[in-house]
């Protein structure tokens, strides 16, 4: 059970990373001008020094930095990320309401980009001068250079405003009642454009890498051996070569989790998708610091869990991936 052991070590390390994120979060909150007392007094329309001092004492803001930091981390361990005075709700509740929407968007886009990217990469590696191969090259350039929010708006103009195939904004149509399947279909219809917008960037990355590694694998000795012993071209590609070309693509996909979330922030803003990105955007405008930092923490958590799962997947696919690192 070497895999489990390695996984346990990685998990322990992930916890340290999370605590580091919390320390960074708290230090930024501390360094930024203005504190909770200022926020409260503003929402009350101003307060005198005496009241400010009382609020600071109530919230423990007069304690030394290290004590406050300890309290903050202790709070987070009990799922307490502070209180949002703008939304009048605990930050954790607020985030948990929005997290599913973001996860749905991010995971669908990642999984589709990975699957389609690998298929496109494999097909175009077998025909390096075919149409699809040229499309992969084009997509790689376009995916890097086009601002994701711009692609989103272009799709919105084309498919929601000009041809009204897809809804303009949001995640579901609340004005219509319906059962579970109706709702699922409704959400799927709302998801099409955001997922295409977000997924296309990563599709570009994965298909290009899949093509490159597949072409390299197809030129290697063991593939020649497989061909020589009389396997059909499809068997060679899908049984032998594919497995060996997957690891680099999955490694890349694992490294992209933080980029996917960054992209999701912009995509959510374009399509008014009710996820963490929209929440981040709204709370930044409202200067709601606890919520902003809570979102940063949760998104780091999503990235870390994503990395752990990638690591596990790599070890399961390719036993040569070993060691503690």
């Amino acid at each position: 059970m070497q895999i489990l052991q390695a996984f346990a070590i990685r998990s322990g390390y992930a916890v340290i990373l999370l605590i580091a994120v919390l320390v960074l979060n708290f230090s930024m909150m501390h360094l930024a001008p203005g504190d909770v007392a200022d926020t409260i007094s503003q929402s009350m329309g101003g307060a005198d020094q005496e009241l400010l001092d009382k609020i600071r004492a109530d919230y423990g803001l007069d304690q030394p930095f290290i004590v406050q930091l300890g309290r903050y981390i202790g709070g987070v361990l009990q799922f307490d990320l502070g209180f949002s005075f703008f939304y009048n709700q605990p930050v954790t509740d607020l985030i948990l309401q929005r997290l599913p929407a973001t996860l749905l968007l991010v995971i669908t886009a990642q999984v589709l980009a990975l699957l389609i990217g690998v298929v496109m990469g494999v097909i175009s590696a077998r025909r390096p001068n075919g149409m699809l191969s040229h499309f992969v090259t084009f997509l790689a350039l376009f995916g890097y250079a086009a601002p994701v929010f711009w692609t989103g708006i272009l799709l919105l103009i084309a498919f929601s405003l000009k041809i009204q195939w897809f809804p303009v904004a949001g995640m579901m149509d609340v004005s219509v009642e319906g059962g579970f399947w109706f709702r699922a279909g409704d959400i799927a219809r709302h998801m099409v454009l955001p997922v295409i917008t977000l997924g296309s960037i990563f599709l570009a990355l994965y298909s290009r890498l899949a093509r490159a590694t597949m072409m390299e694998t197809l030129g290697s000795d063991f593939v020649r051996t497989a061909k020589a012993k009389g396997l059909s071209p499809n068997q060679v590609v899908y049984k032998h070569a594919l497995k060996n070309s997957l690891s680099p693509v999955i490694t890349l996909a694992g490294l992209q989790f933080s980029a996917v979330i960054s992209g999701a922030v912009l995509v959510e803003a374009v399509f008014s998708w009710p996820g963490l990105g929209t929440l981040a955007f709204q709370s930044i405008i409202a200067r709601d610091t606890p919520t902003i930092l809570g979102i940063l923490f949760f998104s780091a958590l999503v990235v870390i869990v994503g990395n752990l799962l990638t690591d596990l997947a790599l070890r399961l696919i390719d036993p040569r991936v070993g060691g503690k690192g």
Partner: protein
Amino acid sequence: MSLIDPENTIPEARSPFSEAWEMFRGNTAAMIALVILCLIVLGAIFGPYLYPTDPFDMVWAPFSPPGADGFILGTDYLGRDLLAALIHGARVSIIIGLAAAAVSILIGVTVGALAGFYKGWVEELLMRITEFFQVLPTLLFSMVIVALFGASLPMITFAIGVVSWTAVARITRSEFLRIRELEYVMASRASGATNAKLMFRVILPNALPPIIVQAALMVGSAILFEAGLSFLGLTDPNVVSWGQVIGSNRQYILDASYTVTIPGLAIFITVLCISLVGDGLNDALNPKLRSR
């Protein structure tokens, strides 16, 4: 000399720059991209003098389409000249792109060089820090920095630079790890070169090719990054940039889609050209790909 080499077959020694330029010039796409890029930069430098219309001035009726009423690219929802916004915005987008890339290359090269040169606990520590920065979603992190510490141009530049140096650090580190074991480095060390001299005079120049390529791509990413931030409204409200034009006009795409498509096209073309130039540099500077 003709005694040794009667047919003149030994090529003359040339500087690595002229050799790389020769390679680069052969790449048509990269050359075209370079020319367009030069035009964009010249436009950003001199455009505001040639076309001094203030991009914040309301000069005409709103939503006047491109070409009508004498405004080449039309006017936006407040009746501001879109061409003026594009020309004046180019400066901000390009300057922030360059400055943020410079910040991230400075941090990345320093971290990567120290980690690759000293190895041991220094490398362990620095690479853990790099990993830490990779875990934070870049855009969210810089949104937080800008939101907490103010949306001035230097702060935006810093916020972009400080979240995007990790790739540079990794590349620099692996180059340093490879080069530090080579014989000429050993020789300099044996002849008494100090660590600082080894790092910056001996190893760094030889590690530069992949760093230069990455630097070119960083400028493109930083321009995209700035566009994303200003699209979200996290920008200095007193300056105009391409992303900000898109962000402020996006509610009106039904009335005037050109106010969004045209500035986006400007970003797209600029970043596309940078990436093509980056590809050209990669071919020209990567000795493994050279056919000789």
